């Protein structure tokens, strides 16, 4: 999987790149408008992360060119400007998603995964870890073909972990992803503990060979046992 990161801020470019490398993506960078235009029109990428405010031009113009030349790959706009107009225009120009800065690496992973999943044709709707298989489309979970019944929030939590296998998931990031945009105004995320506890219990009873570890204070990590 090849990802192009179009971002003028060097530190951010590298930190995103580092995170994606851990996901075993092939990562390329473009730091300004011209480089971005050249790379995105000359090569094929599975996913493009596109910043809108670039030196030399607007990311939206890159989208327009890609659309015109029919070179549209999966584009996720990452913008510091959380503006509804930009979002609507970007999505209208064919972008697949819009992620306002600042974001969590886990959230970026999840967005990339779901964009890739939507565009793949070979049954990319499932993900598995150990003996656990999760179907994003049917919203079902199975442990060695045995169905595991989860409620909506438990499924969303597990799905988020599945899109961030072996990665540290920040508790803030998990709360925002599962409990919605407005939960970020709840100051105390400790309540997530009890949610994770329930999920762990269910996974254990069904003999799933995965484990959700707590990482001191920061969040959780799901690994295969």
């Amino acid at each position, binding site marked *: 999987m090849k990802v192009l990161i179009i971002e003028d*801020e060097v*530190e*951010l470019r590298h*930190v*995103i790149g*580092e*995170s994606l490398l*851990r996901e075993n993506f092939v990562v390329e960078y473009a730091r300004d408008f011209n480089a971005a235009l050249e790379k995105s029109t000359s090569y094929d990428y599975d996913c493009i992360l596109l910043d809108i405010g670039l030196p030399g031009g607007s990311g939206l113009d890159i989208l327009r060119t890609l659309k015109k030349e029919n070179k549209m790959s999966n584009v996720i706009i990452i913008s*510091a*400007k*959380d503006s509804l107009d930009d979002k609507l225009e970007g999505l209208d120009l064919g972008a697949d998603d819009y992620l*306002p*800065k*600042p*974001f*969590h*690496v*886990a959230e970026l992973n999840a967005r990339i995964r779901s964009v890739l999943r939507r565009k793949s044709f070979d049954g990319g709707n499932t993900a598995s870890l150990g003996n656990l298989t999760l179907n994003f489309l049917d919203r079902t979970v199975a442990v060695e073909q045995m169905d595991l019944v989860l409620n909506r*929030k438990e499924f969303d939590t597990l799905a988020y972990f599945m899109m961030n296998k072996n*990665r*540290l998931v*920040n508790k*803030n990031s998990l709360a925002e992803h599962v*409990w*919605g945009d*407005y*939960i*970020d*105004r*709840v*100051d*105390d995320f*400790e*309540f997530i*503990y*009890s*949610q994770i506890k329930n999920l762990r219990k269910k996974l254990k009873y069904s003999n799933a060979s995965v484990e959700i570890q707590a*990482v*001191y*204070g*920061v*969040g959780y990590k799901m690994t295969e046992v």
Partner: protein
Amino acid sequence: MKLHNYTLRYLSVALLAIISIWAVIFYFDMMDEVNDSIEEGLENYKELIIQRISEDSTLLHETAFAESNYVIRPTTQKHAKKHKDVYQDTAIYIISEKEMEPFRMLTTVFKLKDDEYYELKIVSSVIEEDDLMEGLFYSLIWLYVIILASVYIVNSILLRRIWNPFYDVLKKLKDFKPGESIQVEPIATKIQEFRELNKTVDELTDRVNKTYISQKQFIENAAHELQTPLAIGINKLELLAEKQTLGEQDLNEVSSVLDNLQRLTRLNKTLLLLSRIENAQFTPSEEVNLTEVIKRNVELFEDFAAFRGINIVLNAEKELFKTMNPDLAEILVSNLIKNAIVHNINEGKVDIAIGSNSFFISNTGKDAALDKAQLFNRFYRQNTEASGTGLGMAIVKAIADNYSITIDYHFDGLHHIKVSL
């Protein structure tokens, strides 16, 4: 008090004083004139009588004011020598009126032959002062009323015509909202003061607009510029925390820094949101089913509430609708419910009831009423420990103001919030 009535009030007092003073002066002036003219008549009459007496001495026998208006009686030379013509006021009984009426009387002396001196008294009816005063009084009242009425009418017409540009400027100022470009329709007037007023108002609103826009842009730019460094900080720490090299203590430190960066992010986002709401940038409105929004948020927050043993009871029998931006409806409701949970006690409760045109949120919490005056202020916190942004209620207020929703708070052991649409 309107300008119109204001001028009228002062004019009415001033006119009353002016007319009263004028009436007094006029009265005395007129009486003077009347007396003068009567005295001239009496003088003339005297000459006539004396002339006729010299021709017809029978006239000398008029000794009382009967059918004639003079009396003659003989007098001594001594008296006649020092006598001068005297005018005086007197009263005579008038048969037709059956009362005493005022008269002007001339007393004079004349010599007929060598040694015959006579005293002559001639009277002439004068104006009755009472009647005159009364007549004058009523006329003046009428004059006063008519002047006031005409002032009122003329004023109305004039004010409407002359002050029209002023009211146009006033309306322009009333409708003015900072940041909104006002339709610049030049106000047509020949009056220089109004032209200047209009020009000054235009310049002023222009300046306010520019300041407002630049300030707004500054806030937005500052908030936006903060996003990228925040993103770098958060993402770097997240990657750092993933490394296996960190011990438990280091991880806790990283976590604490991360939490604070999160808080900064929230604060930043909330400030942006607040500025957008206040700029009324959330324009598209639709019919929002608030009952659904409340239900959804209760479900969203129930894990969080359950963790603290807080029981949320929702009584949602009625469907409540409001035309507003759906995102703002969501934010309004979620902030209120979140507040009811966050500022609660463990094992407490939250009651939510939906009425026909309002909804109520009651919750247990601190055992004292909140300061109503400060409740909606930015960065007002009940306790300093909470890591909230301190902007939640300010946002609620901003949204409410946008849609003329009123929010009332009262405390009777429970904290009650009433949201009236």
